[in-house]
């Protein structure tokens, strides 16, 4: 085993474990471990014990994953095997917690005698939250700046540009200077910005999951999408900045070794930390936002519709009747697709194609 090469494996494993540990607290109280429950059952003993088992499980899996990365393999294999163990293991722990809650729900007939409803707030559509376009300007400005810099720098670039680096910033392969190779990173910036802008905009206008028992439901949704859009646009700008730094290195403006790899990733890392912090503060759909005043407990015996049958394994949404393509995740913060909609499948195929293309080009 090689300590220095398995160290990078530790970071993603710990990050995944950390995120998985946090996630249950971020989900709305009417959905626990991917299972829809009436709000008053959120404190049920079965839910609590599922949560305990889950936490123990995630810690155990993370420990196993770390050991795998450290002892079983080295280098890239360490990273991959450790992360694979972590991903598969945490998902398995989640599934166990989910079946525990689902079993309690069915045995206890938690939805019996309750009126199941779906709720929509028309104002979210007729007086929609304004999209924070101004926050997209930094991302665009950085792309333009990078391109401009490249144009000015082009005559002074070496005839052979670095094409690939290793983990500590040492060049490992070169390519001939050309318009395409010099501006490849600008191309990546443009594509990444376009994709992220589009997705942020689409999910911003995506459907809300309003809790029928919560009088502040619509306000939660507004604050959630407003904050998430800003964070995502900020992340887009940060990624463009990272790509700008990378371009500076390939254009021979700055050295690529020493502290540079850290500097390179700093903007993206910082923006990601901000995003996660905001997501944790708000909770999925704004579920953790605190409001003043007494919670109005609806006297109409109404609960959120039990839509478990549309959520396969509690994570894959499949509903032919629902025209929505993007929906809010059930377990986690963010969005996922409605797999019953062709547009969603086309999108996923497109993403897959891009990934395959990038891997093939390396």
């Amino acid at each position, binding site marked *: 085993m090689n300590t220095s090469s398995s160290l990078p494996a530790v970071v993603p494993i710990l990050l995944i474990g950390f995120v998985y540990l946090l996630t249950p607290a971020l989900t709305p109280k009417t959905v626990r471990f991917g299972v829809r429950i009436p709000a008053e059952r959120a404190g049920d003993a079965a839910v609590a014990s599922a949560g305990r088992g889950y936490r123990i499980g995630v810690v155990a899996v993370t420990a196993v994953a770390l050991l795998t990365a450290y002892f079983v393999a080295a280098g890239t294999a360490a990273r991959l095997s450790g992360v694979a163990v972590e991903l598969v293991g945490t998902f398995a722990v989640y599934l166990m917690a989910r079946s525990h809650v689902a079993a309690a729900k069915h045995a206890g007939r938690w939805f019996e005698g309750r*009126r*199941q*409803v*779906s*709720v*929509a*707030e*028309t*104002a*979210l*559509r*007729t007086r929609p939250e304004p999209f924070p376009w101004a926050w997209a300007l930094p991302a665009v400005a950085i792309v333009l700046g990078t391109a401009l810099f490249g144009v000015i720098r082009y005559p002074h670039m070496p005839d052979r540009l670095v094409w690939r680096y290793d983990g500590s910033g040492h060049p490992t392969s070169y390519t001939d200077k050309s318009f395409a190779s010099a501006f490849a990173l600008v191309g990546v910036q443009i594509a990444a910005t376009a994709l992220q802008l589009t997705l942020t905009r689409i999910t911003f206008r995506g*459907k*809300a999951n*309003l809790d*029928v028992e919560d009088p502040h439901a*619509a306000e939660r949704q507004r604050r959630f999408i407003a904050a998430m859009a800003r964070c995502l646009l900020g992340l887009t700008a940060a990624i463009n900045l990272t790509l700008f730094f990378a371009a500076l290195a390939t254009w021979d403006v700055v050295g690529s070794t020493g502290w540079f790899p850290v500097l390179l990733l700093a903007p993206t890392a910082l923006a990601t930390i901000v995003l996660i912090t905001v997501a944790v503060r708000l909770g999925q759909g704004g579920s953790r936002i605190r409001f003043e005043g007494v919670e109005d407990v609806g006297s109409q015996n*109404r609960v959120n*519709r039990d*839509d478990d049958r*549309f959520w396969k394994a509690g994570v894959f949404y499949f*509903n032919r*009747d*629902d*025209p*929505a393509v993007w929906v809010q995740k059930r377990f986690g913060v963010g969005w996922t697709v409605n797999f019953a909609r062709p547009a969603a499948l086309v999108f996923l195929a497109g993403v897959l194609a891009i990934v395959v293309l990038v891997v093939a080009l390396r």
Partner: protein
Amino acid sequence: MLLTVEPDGDDPIYQQLRDQIVVAIAAGVLLPGDALPTTRQLAADLGINMHTVNKAYDLLRREGFVRLGRRTGAVVARGPADGPADAEDVAEWEPRARTLLAEAFAKGMPPQEVLERCQVLLDEFTKR
């Protein structure tokens, strides 16, 4: 305004939607000129089929409550202040009112109480 649907309820979903919108118009929650979400938006938000929302909007259009535009979706077309009900509307409404009153009376509610309760309900709309 909040629109609530109960998929397993007694009334079909499109009827539930139509009823809530009519009540909102009566209560002044929806004013003439107010927009309603498009079919697709409302269907997505409620997680129901677009046909169902279409049916509701179409029913409201035929009853004269909303106008449907291609780009603008549904817009409230009239309110309580927009002219008295014509004979046709009254003729359509009266049998249903008759059934409701019959239900109450047949279950032993005294006529006076029936009228009082009706007044309370009407006050909801006129007091806004």
